[in-house]
C-alpha cells in the first residue's frame, strides 16, 4: 500500500483506541463518515427494494403516545439504575462476607437470574410473587423486575472490581488500623469503581434497552406505545424506527461518556 493511503487507513501500531492528535482525529472523523455513508447507502438500497410506501401521518397523530412512552422508559430505567446499583453493591459485599448463608444467597441469586430468560422472570414476579406480597403497582413491579435482573450482572461486575484490588492494598489498610468497613469505604470501593466504570456503563445501556421487555406486563413504556401505534396505524416501520431513535438518544451519550472514562482511566495508571 502507498504510504499516504496507509496513513489514512491505518491507526498507529499498538493503539486500539481512536487516536488523539489533531491530525489523526481528523482522519478518524473522515473514516467514520465514509463508513457511515456506506452503511446508509446499503440501507437505502434495501428500503428501495421494498417499494415501501412511507406514511408518517399516522404515527405523527399519535406522537403524544410516543412521548408518554419515552418518559415512562426514562423514569423506569432511571429508578432501576439506582435500585440495581444499590442492590449490586450490597450483593457484592455480601458475597465477600464471612457469613456463608449470605454468600450462598448471592450465588443463587446471580446464577438464577443470569441463567434464566428475563421474560420468565418478569412473568413470575408479576403473576406469582407480587400478588402474594400484595404488591399491586405495575410500575413498582417493573422497576423491581428490571433491578433484580440488572442487579445480578452489576453484582458480578462489582465483585470482579473488588477482587481486582491487589492484596497489598488490603494488607496496607489493615496495617494502618482501618476497620473492614473503612477499608471498603476509603480504599477498595473508590479504586474498584474507577476500574469498573466502563463495564458498569455498558450494563446501564443494556438496562435501558431491556426495559422494553416490561411491555409484556402492560407497562406503558416506549416499546409498548410503539406497538400500540403500529396496531392503530398499520405503519410498522414508521412506528418502530422512532423507537430505535428514542433508545439511541438515551444510550449513545452513555456510550460516549464510557469512552471518555476509559481514556481517563488509561492515563491515570
Amino acid at each position, binding site marked *: 500500500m502507498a504510504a499516504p493511503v496507509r496513513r489514512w487507513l491505518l491507526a498507529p501500531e499498538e493503539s486500539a483506541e481512536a487516536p488523539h492528535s489533531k491530525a489523526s482525529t481528523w482522519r478518524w472523523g473522515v473514516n467514520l463518515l465514509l463508513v457511515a455513508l456506506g452503511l446508509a447507502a446499503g440501507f437505502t438500497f434495501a428500503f428501495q427494494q421494498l417499494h415501501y410506501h412511507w406514511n408518517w401521518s399516522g404515527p405523527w397523530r399519535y406522537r403524544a403516545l410516543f412521548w408518554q412512552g419515552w418518559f415512562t422508559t426514562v423514569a423506569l430505567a432511571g429508578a432501576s439504575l439506582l435500585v440495581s446499583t444499590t442492590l449490586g453493591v450490597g450483593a457484592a459485599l455480601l458475597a465477600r462476607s464471612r457469613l456463608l448463608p449470605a454468600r450462598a444467597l448471592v450465588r443463587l441469586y446471580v446464577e438464577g437470574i443470569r441463567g434464566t430468560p428475563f421474560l420468565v422472570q418478569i412473568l413470575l414476579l408479576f403473576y406469582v410473587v407480587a400478588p402474594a406480597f400484595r404488591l399491586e403497582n405495575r410500575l413498582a413491579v417493573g422497576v423491581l423486575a428490571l433491578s433484580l435482573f440488572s442487579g445480578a450482572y452489576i453484582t458480578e461486575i462489582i465483585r470482579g472490581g473488588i477482587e481486582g484490588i*491487589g492484596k497489598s492494598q488490603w494488607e*496496607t489498610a*489493615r496495617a*494502618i*488500623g482501618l476497620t473492614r468497613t473503612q477499608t471498603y469505604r476509603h480504599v477498595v470501593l473508590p*479504586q474498584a469503581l474507577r476500574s469498573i466504570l466502563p463495564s458498569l456503563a455498558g450494563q446501564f445501556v443494556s438496562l435501558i434497552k431491556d426495559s422494553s421487555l416490561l411491555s409484556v406486563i402492560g407497562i406503558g413504556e416506549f416499546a409498548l406505545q410503539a406497538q400500540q401505534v403500529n396496531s392503530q396505524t398499520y405503519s410498522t416501520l414508521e412506528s418502530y424506527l422512532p423507537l430505535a431513535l428514542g433508545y439511541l438518544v438515551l444510550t449513545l451519550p452513555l456510550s460516549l461518556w464510557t469512552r471518555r472514562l476509559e481514556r481517563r482511566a488509561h492515563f*491515570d495508571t
Partner: protein
Amino acid sequence: MDLRLQSIGKSFGGQSVLRDVALELTNVQALVLIGPSGGGKSTLLRMLAGLEPPTTGTVTLEGEPLHYHDDDALRRHRARTGFVFQAHNLFPHLTATENLLLPLVQVHGMTQDAALEQIDTLLRRFHLSDHAHKRPSQLSGGQQQRVAIARAVAIRPRWLLFDEPTSALDPEMTAEVLDMIAELRAEGRSFVLVTHQMGFARRVADHVAFVGFGGIPEHGQPADIFDQPRTPELKRFLHRVLSY
C-alpha cells in the same frame, strides 16, 4: 523497646517456618533482623505488627502480651505501629497528603485541619513538600517509600517496623530511603528493620538477630554478629552475602 518472644512457632498449611523461637531484649532502640530469604524474618516482623498470629507462643511488648485473638485489641496495636512494606505501601488513588491523612482522620480521630497542619510540617521536614499533591504513580520508587515512612511516622507510633523497605529499589533510591531511616534512628525512635543491606544493618542497629533455619540461631551486638559469628549457619550466611 522491651520485647520478649516465648516459644514462638508458626506454620503455614503444615509447613513450619518458625519453631520454638525465644528472644528477650530490654531497652533496645534499633533491632535489625537479617537472614536468608524464606527464613522467617518477614513472618516474624508481621507477627510483631499484629498482621499474622503465631501458631504457638507469646509476644510481649513493653511488658504487655499481644492478644492475637482479640480483633479490636489487635487493631489498636496495629494503629500504634508504623509499618512499612517492601513496596506498594501507598494507596494509588490518593495523593501523598491524602495517604497520610487517611489514618490520622479515620483511625486516630484527628480533625482534618489539625491533621493537614501536622502533615505539612512532616512533609517539609522530610523534603517531600514538592510531592504533597502527587499521586504515587507520579513519584519515584524512593519517593514512594519515603512518603510511606512519613505516613508511618505521622501517626506517632510507639515503634516502626520496616519489612525490607529498599529491596525493590535501585542503589541511589536505596540510599535516600536508608538516610531517612538513619535520621529517624538519630531522633531516638524505636524500630525493627528487616534488611539485606548488611553495611547499613551494622551502622544502625544496636541489636542484630539472625533469623533462619526455623529460629534465631544467633543474636547480639552488631560488632559481635558481624565480626565474630559463632554458629556455622551465620558464618556461612555472612560469607555468602559479603563475598560480593
